């Protein structure tokens, strides 16, 4: 079943076509990777899907509903969350509080209750904290729970972002280069983590430069180059695709023709 679909997404920044007619479908509980050389438009595509950028043209569908240009907070409430390539940690909060913020859409107390600290707020705080600790346990960060998030190591912060996004209980999780800057052991951990997330029925959409990781865990791979779709297929197909090899090895730039044009 298709959970997330983009249909002919196009966006230009100051005359430069950052994305040109990009379409894909991601199936529930699978890992769908988007790869491509630097500047291919991967992060832009993520920003469009998560509502941070509004496309000039095209549609985004979440669970069969048109969610194009919906604000990120509304998308989050419909079950789409993401992490950021350049970490967006709440550094003044503790590790567990960071994840507690991820529970926001499940919290039910109102402003007046919060100001007067009704008993419901204590209960809510407890429920939120327990859920946050579960998410932390999943990425192995429980020992760091009370530390200020700003004091965590880089690899831990990467995992913290994933825990925080997971705490929202998304249907679709966008991971923007989760393994960037991680050593082989950390990358292996992230691989295991992503497999576990997909096994729970969450659709993982992954942007990643680590080809070994991508080839290992992706059910489907979508290749972008210069804002165009170059190819899509499973790991074996992508590995064997001459256009993809060209794009990555850069034998001749002339080969970077789009695989399909907008109809």
């Amino acid at each position, binding site marked *: 079943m298709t959970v997330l679909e983009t249909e002919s997404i196009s966006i230009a920044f100051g005359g430069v076509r950052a994305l040109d007619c990009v379409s894909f479908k991601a199936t529930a509980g699978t890992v769908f990777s988007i790869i491509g050389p630097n500047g291919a438009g991967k992060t832009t595509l993520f920003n469009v899907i998560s509502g941070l950028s509004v496309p000039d043209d095209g549609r985004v569908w979440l669970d069969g509903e048109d969610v194009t240009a919906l604000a990120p907070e509304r998308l989050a409430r419909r079950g789409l969350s993401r992490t950021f390539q350049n970490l967006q940690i709440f550094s003044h909060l503790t590790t567990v509080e960071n994840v507690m913020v991820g529970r926001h859409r499940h919290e039910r107390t109102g402003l007046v209750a919060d100001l007067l600290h009704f008993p419901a707020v204590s209960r809510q705080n407890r429920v939120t904290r327990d859920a946050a600790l579960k998410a932390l346990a999943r990425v192995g960060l*429980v020992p760091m729970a009370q530390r200020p998030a700003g004091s965590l190591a880089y690899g831990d912060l990467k995992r913290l972002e994933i825990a925080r996004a997971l705490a929202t209980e998304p249907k679709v999780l966008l991971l923007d280069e989760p393994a960037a800057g991680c050593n082989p052991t950390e990358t292996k951990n992230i691989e295991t983590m992503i497999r576990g997330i997909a096994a729970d029925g969450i659709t993982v959409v992954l942007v990643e430069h680590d080809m070994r990781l991508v080839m290992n865990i992706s059910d489907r791979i979508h290749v972008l180059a210069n804002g165009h779709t170059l190819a899509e297929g499973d790991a074996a197909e992508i590995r064997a695709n001459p256009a993809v090899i060209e794009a990555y090895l850069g034998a001749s730039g002339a080969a970077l023709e789009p695989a399909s044009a907008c109809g």
Partner: protein
Amino acid sequence: MLTLTDRFRLLQRHRLIPLIPLAAIILVLPLLFPSAYYYRIAALVFIFSIAALGLNLLMGFAGQVSLGHAGFMGVGAYAVAIGPTRLGIAPLVAFVLGAIFSALLAFVVGRPILRLKGHYLAVATLGFGVLLTIIFTNEAKWTGGPDGMPVQQITFINWTLRRVSTWYWILAVSFLLSAVIALNLIDSPTGRALRAIHDSERAARVLGIDVAQKKLAVFVISAVYASVAGSFFALINGYVTPDVSGFLRSIELVAMVVLGGMGSIVGSFVGSAVLVVLPQGLTIFHEYEHAILGLTLMAVMIFLRRGIVPSLAAVLGGTQK
């Protein structure tokens, strides 16, 4: 999955613990006061602490600046002046109406203004404060113009609230209640959302937080704090002039928050205490008074750069953040 020790380690200290030393100070201080003058200074400290607390929620927790917050003090002050004198409303009713009006004003003004960030927000709020001061100065028919107007005292049947020691206790309790509400907010879903917005609006949004709505909520709350402080200020002075909402007063509120420590509830009290008491103490230096005040503020910010309370807490706790 989580062991008992894990849970124990995660138990937080109770959110109201910071108020214990404050309550102790409030109880002990009157024993040391030789004259009514000291009660008055302490009363002013409480009043400005309330305003600084509200501004701290906006600045220290949600990370949004306001250089026009004294404008809301002015609304509260003129509410208790104009209500009873010109409209025949009881002072306490005027007090509440002033707070409600401030909240509505903040709601209306906050919507467009809070879309701005950083310096742009600072200038917009500055303009708002200046605008209110101009209104208080020019609408002489209602406000008495630049010379201001008297404020009726609060009376119950045939007893008039006049003694400054009574005010001390009323204001001390009001300040503590304001602090309790602020601490409640911080340790709640809304408070976590506000602190998250401070660090990353993008991350807050993709986690489902309606950033515009939360910013507006805290702006309204901080306006009510300022309005309450302004009403008290007018009532204990028995007089109000447009200075109450002036630009210098707004800057003073920001200085109190930053000096005491952004994001520190106790800090707002300490910052207010320093900026109210220090000028009084420095009068013995006559013409050097302002120079010494300025130098002191500079020295504090250079050596305690995160504000008095957080910096000292870090030194005493042996933790460097």
